[in-house]
């Protein structure tokens, strides 16, 4: 009995013994990412593996983890061993820099374009023939329109939507805060279902056929059309929208320990290469690379983009005023 007991416990620990830092050349890195980037990174990874093998002769395996980007940041702080993060929220990377120094303080300067290899914007997806005649944000607050977008509390995606609508209302009403609040309040009361993540919202809209308009990143809008039929859904790009940057960063605290700094950095740099930018653009994200930009120009209609910093001061400020407990979001919700 005792021997068996010992053996059983021993086996259990053997099985679960956490892999500690091994030899110098890492065999895998973990990319912790936001919810709807699965297909994108699944397409980039093999290309990077080939590139890395070519360059160094080493095989590298890239693991992916996807969930709401705030949840992911929390998991990293709690011990999820990410080498790099590719998020859809500046704030979620910043929190890694502020708490526990997972990411370098200067992460936004470490890579071009505020460390964002690509960007997108909240846009609308409507059903075939645009039956409700949706053109701009103002159509979304009509009584006969039902919306689908995820919960701004849990989804970075939805935070962009909320802030874009707020910014639009501010501009329409000459900066009147009360009017803007009323506007987003109406917008929220038109929401038919609040999923916790971007993917859940898409499923609600497409599979469960809930709502008239799905508001999500333009990239996702186009991916849905590609997946579910270009004729069944239409993209509507509003007159103004919010610049949604997709920041990436090296989780140096983990990468240094695991000896994966070089390959992780190379991966992030690779995201800016023409090869990767082309893949990224083919997934309907807007990129900065001029050649790729020209090639895909017709996919991306002109739109006036405003920055969070310009309207709300900073991400941190926007977060405190709007999304924190008791903030504007909670207030307009209670108002219903």
């Amino acid at each position, binding site marked *: 009995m005792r021997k068996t007991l010992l053996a059983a416990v021993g086996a259990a620990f053997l099985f*679960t013994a956490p892999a500690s830092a091994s030899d110098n050349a890492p065999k895998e890195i973990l990319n912790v990412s936001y919810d709807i980037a*699965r297909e994108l990174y699944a397409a980039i990874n093999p290309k990077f593996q080939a590139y890395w093998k070519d360059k160094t002769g080493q095989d590298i395996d890239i693991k992916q983890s*996807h969930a709401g980007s705030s949840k992911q940041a929390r998991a990293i702080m709690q*011990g999820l061993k990410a080498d790099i993060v590719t998020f859809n929220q500046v704030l979620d990377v910043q929190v890694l820099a502020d708490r526990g120094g997972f990411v370098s303080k200067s992460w936004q300067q470490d890579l071009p374009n505020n460390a964002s290899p690509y960007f997108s914007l909240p846009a609308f997806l409507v059903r075939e023939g645009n039956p409700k005649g949706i053109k701009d944000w103002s159509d979304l607050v009509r009584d006969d329109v039902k919306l689908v977008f995820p919960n701004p509390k849990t989804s970075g995606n939805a935070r962009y939507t909320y802030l874009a609508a707020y910014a639009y209302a501010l501009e329409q009403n000459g900066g009147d805060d009360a009017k803007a609040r009323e506007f987003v309040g109406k917008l929220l009361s038109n929401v038919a279902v609040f999923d916790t993540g971007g993917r859940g919202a898409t499923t609600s809209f497409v599979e469960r056929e809930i709502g008239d308009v799905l508001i999500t990143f333009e990239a996702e809008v186009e991916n849905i059309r590609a997946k579910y039929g270009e004729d069944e859904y239409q993209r509507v790009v509003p007159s103004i929208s919010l610049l949604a940057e997709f920041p990436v960063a090296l989780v140096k605290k983990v990468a240094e320990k695991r000896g994966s700094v070089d390959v992780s950095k190379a991966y992030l740099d690779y995201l800016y290469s023409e090869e990767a930018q082309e893949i990224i653009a083919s997934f309907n994200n807007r990129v900065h690379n001029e050649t790729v930009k020209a090639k895909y120009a017709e996919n991306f209609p002109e739109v006036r983009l405003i920055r969070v910093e310009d309207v709300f001061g900073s991400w941190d400020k926007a977060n405190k005023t709007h999304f924190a407990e008791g903030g504007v979001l909670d207030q307009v919700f209670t108002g219903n």
Partner: protein
Amino acid sequence: MTAPSSTPPITNPQVLALLRQKARKRAVLIVVALLFAALVMALPVIAIFARAFQEGFEVYSANITTPDTLHAIWLTVLTALIVLPINLIYGIAVSWAIVHYRFPGRRALQIIIELPFSISPIVAGLCYLLIYGATGVVGSWLDGWDIQLMFNLFGIVLVSLFVTCPFVARELIPLMEISGQDQEEAALTLGATGWQTFRHVTLPKIKWALLYGAILANARVIGEFGAVSVVSGNIRGETMTLPLQVQLLYNDYNATGAFAAATVLTVIAVITLVLRSTIEARHPHEHA
């Protein structure tokens, strides 16, 4: 079959009417019960299979054999294999201690071992993060030794243990209490060692209850979602158990894949039920 015909047929019309009325009542109750069971319990299971095979068997088998889903199946089985022996040892130990001895704190221990059943899985996951996560009391200390408990197999095993640890003890304690310890004492008087007594006297008495508890615990380990989703790092092909994989596929626009993975879990559930009712039918009084 000859017994009913040997009783004289009832001819009294009043009695007949009464019997008919009774039969009607009986039929109504049975039909309502069956309807409820069919609607609430059977229909969802049928829906899973219908949806999984909606696009044909080929699509189904292609979905089941993707590397990520196969890995999720493997991880789930591995977790169950690790959790099971620990649960058995703990269950036997705690039952033995509670049934055979009186010690201070015994009542408290009895309450504590039942506690995990009344705790929401999400809350359980949160508790583990708070203690064993890298910022937690124990977790940060272990982190200094480069030992990571959350977001890997270890974390999944730990929360699985938490949610399933009451099952075995809950079967064993009542049974061991009823059967008493006379036989064990006799064996001991005759010179058997403690281990021999357990192996040859106690174990045969409790083996069916043990198996029964193990089956229930196992089903729960395999199906646990809430607690595991908090402590799994969501790393594809690495820390996704089958229930998490179901949700992942569902969110990946791959509803068919999700339902295909769900059929595996459903089959496991059905096997569990069959085993359970077989034990119950064959050994009705050997478990609680």
